[in-house]
């Protein structure tokens, strides 16, 4: 019974944790601009993260090693160092966006400018990673993040022409007045938002912290197979709400408030309140996850003590130092009044460009029978994972040229 509760909790947490500002903003921007014609990109990205997160959890359970550990072992010191820098840089951009997201949620509830909230949010985030029982916070925020399910209710309330929408989504065409490169650029953005590497860094490190073993492989599967698809359902409903309400008015989504307008229309004040709570919780949870991931990547590359292995912060002083520096850097970046929505868009696209460095070693090690024994990848997951490897390599090759050609989607 206790086990069941634990699994349920894990799954619930997962749902909250798998929607962050990247999915939120990108889905809304794309929905308003391209309707449901890019819904497939969310589905493709979600299947990808499901397959690779499951592998990373399985590797962590059997070898007690988190993803970045494996990255260095298989890629060698130099490639892994390149990955360390790129992953860290993208992580920092994402952290900046998430911190700003938390502050924006508070701004929308208080009408006090978000820049004033950034330092306070930063301080609270730091206190959580410094001292408070982290799992409690993580679970609490995961649960609150479920408020984002309000988008599914709103969509139902808006009463769309379901079959027309499904038809539109299943026969994607580039809308009039939009170029193919721009359309593909945003497809990559959605793909990158779904497959952000920090998710596997965090997920696998969490599995190591929780001392997952062979018996936890079911928990792993449940987390991944329920959590990510539900996150995707939320992303899709955000996209559909935007497409239905914002699209016909040619709204260019550049603020979080605009994403809330369809909710206000469909569900009124209570709906908006639920959305703000959900958005607050999701971005706060993601702030914790991205910040810790920044620390994990460094600690796992250099072999430092990280996380619970240290009973007091001073025993993991290098790890804690990286956290503090990263948090300050992200806060400083947010306070330059840099547009958080733009930062989000850049971070999801750049993370799409860096995917193979992270996912390739996971695939290799999940096949190593010396480590995995009978739990090595079967032909089924290998077929899908290899397909995705080809996709992410292709994405890496085209992302930067597309970014330049479309002036970042303008």
């Amino acid at each position: 019974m206790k086990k069941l509760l634990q699994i349920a909790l894990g799954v619930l947490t997962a749902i909250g944790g798998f929607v962050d500002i990247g999915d939120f903003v990108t889905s809304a921007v794309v929905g308003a601009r391209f309707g449901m014609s890019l819904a497939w990109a969310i589905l493709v990205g979600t299947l990808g993260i499901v397959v690779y997160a499951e592998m990373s959890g399985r590797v962590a359970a059997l070898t007690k090693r988190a993803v970045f550990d494996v990255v260095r072992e298989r890629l060698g010191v130099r490639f892994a160092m390149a990955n360390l820098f790129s992953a860290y840089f993208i992580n920092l951009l994402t952290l900046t966006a998430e911190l700003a997201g938390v502050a924006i949620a508070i701004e929308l509830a208080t009408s006090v400018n978000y820049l004033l909230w950034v330092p306070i949010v930063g301080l609270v985030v730091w206190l959580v990673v410094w001292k408070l029982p982290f799992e409690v916070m993580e679970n609490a925020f995961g649960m609150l993040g479920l408020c984002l399910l309000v988008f599914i209710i709103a969509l139902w309330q808006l009463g769309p022409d379901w079959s027309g929408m499904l038809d539109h989504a299943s026969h994607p065409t580039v809308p009039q007045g939009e170029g193919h490169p721009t359309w593909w650029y945003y497809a990559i953005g959605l793909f990158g938002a779904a497959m952000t590497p920090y998710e596997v860094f965090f997920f696998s490190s969490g599995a190591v912290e929780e001392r997952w073993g062979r018996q936890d492989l079911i928990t792993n599967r449940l987390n991944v197979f329920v959590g990510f698809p539900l996150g995707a359902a939320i992303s899709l409903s955000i996209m559909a709400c935007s497409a239905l309400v914002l699209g016909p008015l040619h709204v260019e989504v550049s603020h979080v408030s605009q994403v809330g307008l369809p909710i206000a229309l469909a569900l009124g004040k209570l709906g908006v309140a639920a959305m703000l709570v959900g958005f607050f919780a999701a971005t706060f949870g993601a702030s914790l996850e991205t910040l810790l991931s920044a620390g994990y990547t460094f600690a796992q590359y250099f072999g430092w003590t990280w996380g619970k292995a240290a009973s007091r912060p001073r025993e993991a002083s290098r790890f804690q130092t990286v956290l503090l520096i990263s948090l300050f850097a992200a806060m400083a970046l947010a306070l330059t009044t840099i547009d958080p929505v733009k930062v989000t868009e850049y971070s999801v696209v750049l993370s799409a460009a860096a995917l193979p460095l992270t996912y390739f070693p996971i695939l290799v090690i999940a096949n190593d029978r010396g480590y995995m024994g009978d739990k090595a990848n079967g032909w089924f997951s290998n077929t899908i994972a290899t397909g995705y490897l080809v996709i992410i390599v292709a994405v890496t090759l085209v992302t930067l040229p597309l970014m330049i050609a479309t002036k970042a989607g303008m």
Partner: protein
Amino acid sequence: MADQILYAGRQLLDRQIATSEGRSVGKVDDLEIDLDQPGGPVVAALLTGQIALGARFRGRLSVWVTSIAQRLRASGDLEPRRLDIRLVSSVAATVTLRVPHGDLPPADLEAWLAEHFIGRIPGA
């Protein structure tokens, strides 16, 4: 018989080193070979830490990785942190030592940061 063969690059190098109670010590950044043994060369020690790691890079990156570590050395010597091979108790996904954390001298950077930075924050 098969488990008696160990490939240094693939099975030892870059793996995590942990103490007997599971605390991280560092990575196997290099291995020291003693060429003067009568029965042929043997692995004498695991080398860990940024000084050993820095030597594996070329150019500016090498200087960058190494210099932080060097600056923190009270003695100013450039020898990497060395763990005698006799401390090793098993080699698998993790290289485990037979001693607890308290028996090993702490890494320079960890100790320095604990004393001068992190340790000064309340609650550390």
